[in-house]
């Protein structure tokens, strides 16, 4: 049986763990429609007989609430922001992701460490340091990268929940208005994702297409993986 492979140095007690399931990541910026697609993928997978576990960014039991609170209180520096993301991911990794992979589930991750690498890197953290910090993350079987340019993202976000402080990266551009800040920030995030996309063989899906067509493309990529 396959064992879990990691991006780099992982704790010794996590190495050599057998992996019966599959780890599928859906990545992309705020407002690109990731969560909707994850829900739809999950339904489709379950209908076709696969047991699914979903895991979402900053939803850990350990620090999910701490992160929300710290973000709303603006107590974070880029360093503590990064380390809290790492705490959150590590908790979900060991409590949700690894047990599910062991047991043969399809794990659907709504965002993954690539979000942390992008967000923390644009906030000035060294890329090499970041990559080593998150080296304990398993290498996913498939990374689906939903891509949309920043002005189109802004229109979508404005039509749904409105642009919030962190989506606009206001901590980075306090002098700009909320729209300009959003576009400047998300453009930088997109640059990061685009760079990773080449290095790490993400499957890019053009999110300008109608939602049904995007979902179709996601499903065929997942179907190919599960047939292997």
């Amino acid at each position, binding site marked *: 049986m396959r064992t879990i492979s990691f991006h780099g*140095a*992982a704790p010794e*007690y996590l190495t050599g763990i057998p992996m019966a399931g599959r780890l599928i990541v859906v990545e992309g910026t705020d407002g690109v429609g990731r969560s909707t697609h994850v829900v739809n993928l999950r339904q489709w997978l379950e209908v076709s007989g696969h047991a699914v576990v979903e895991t979402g960014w900053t939803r850990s039991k350990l620090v999910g609430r701490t992160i929300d609170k710290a973000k709303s209180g603006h107590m974070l520096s880029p360093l503590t922001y990064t*380390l809290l993301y790492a705490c959150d991911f*590590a908790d979900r990794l060991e409590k949700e992701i690894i047990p599910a992979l062991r047991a043969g589930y399809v794990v659907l991750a709504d965002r993954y460490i690539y979000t942390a690498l992008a967000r923390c890197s644009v906030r000035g953290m060294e890329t090499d340091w970041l990559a*080593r910090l998150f080296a*304990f993350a398993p290498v996913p079987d498939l990374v689906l990268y939903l891509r949309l340019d920043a002005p189109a993202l802004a229109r979508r976000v404005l039509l749904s929940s409105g642009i919030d402080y962190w989506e606009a990266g206001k901590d980075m551009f306090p002098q700009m208005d909320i729209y300009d800040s959003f576009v400047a920030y998300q453009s930088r995030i997109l640059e990061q994702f685009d760079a990773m996309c080449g290095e790490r063989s993400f499957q890019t899906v053009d999110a300008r297409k109608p939602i049904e067509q995007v979902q179709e493309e996601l499903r065929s990529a997942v179907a190919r993986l599960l047939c292997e």
Partner: protein
Amino acid sequence: MTRLKEPHPHPGLLIVVEGIDGSGKTTQAHLLKSWLESRGEAVFFTEWNSSELVKKATRAGKKSATLTPLTFSLMHATDFADRHLYQIVPPLKAGMIVIADRYAYTAFARDEARGVHPEWLRNTYSFATRPDVALYFRVSTDVALERLSSARAKIKYYEAGMDMRLSADIAESFGIFQSRVVSHYDRLCDEYGLTTIDATRTIPDQQAIVRDVVLARLRERRRGGAA
């Protein structure tokens, strides 16, 4: 980031006390602080695991025994990063003396004893300012255990390494786990040049050594500043 290996540029002085639980390092740190203050120095004291940012979450994780070696390590790194930002660097820039009860070396020794990768630990903590004085209070686990047993009612779960399932008996687990921590500390003394103090000596004897080491460093600093 390689700050932990390079001298810091700040006018203040960073003093670190290290050692296993029951080594007496906190007592020594307090005596040092009183003495420095009596000499007119401005001293700022900061201790491990005390930042408001993650204190509650860490406590909840410890209480429910749901922390893994990795999350245990990362929670403490977050705590340290937050204190480094707010409590360690600003007083050093202001020319004060900072005394830190435990530092990155605690994480290196303790988390590696739990199976966390040593290089990963060094990378994670590479933002830490290098101390001017790092004192390691070395004691056997038997002595530490005896001190802890007389000082408080119960040895704590993670302190005893009970999460490692080394023994069902808490005292025995403490002995096995903390012996591993001590062997890692011993290696850190060479790697980072920690000053080892025999923590089985009397409290005043140890304190006299501590004050000598700190005074020498202060004089060196003042001479360097005048040059």
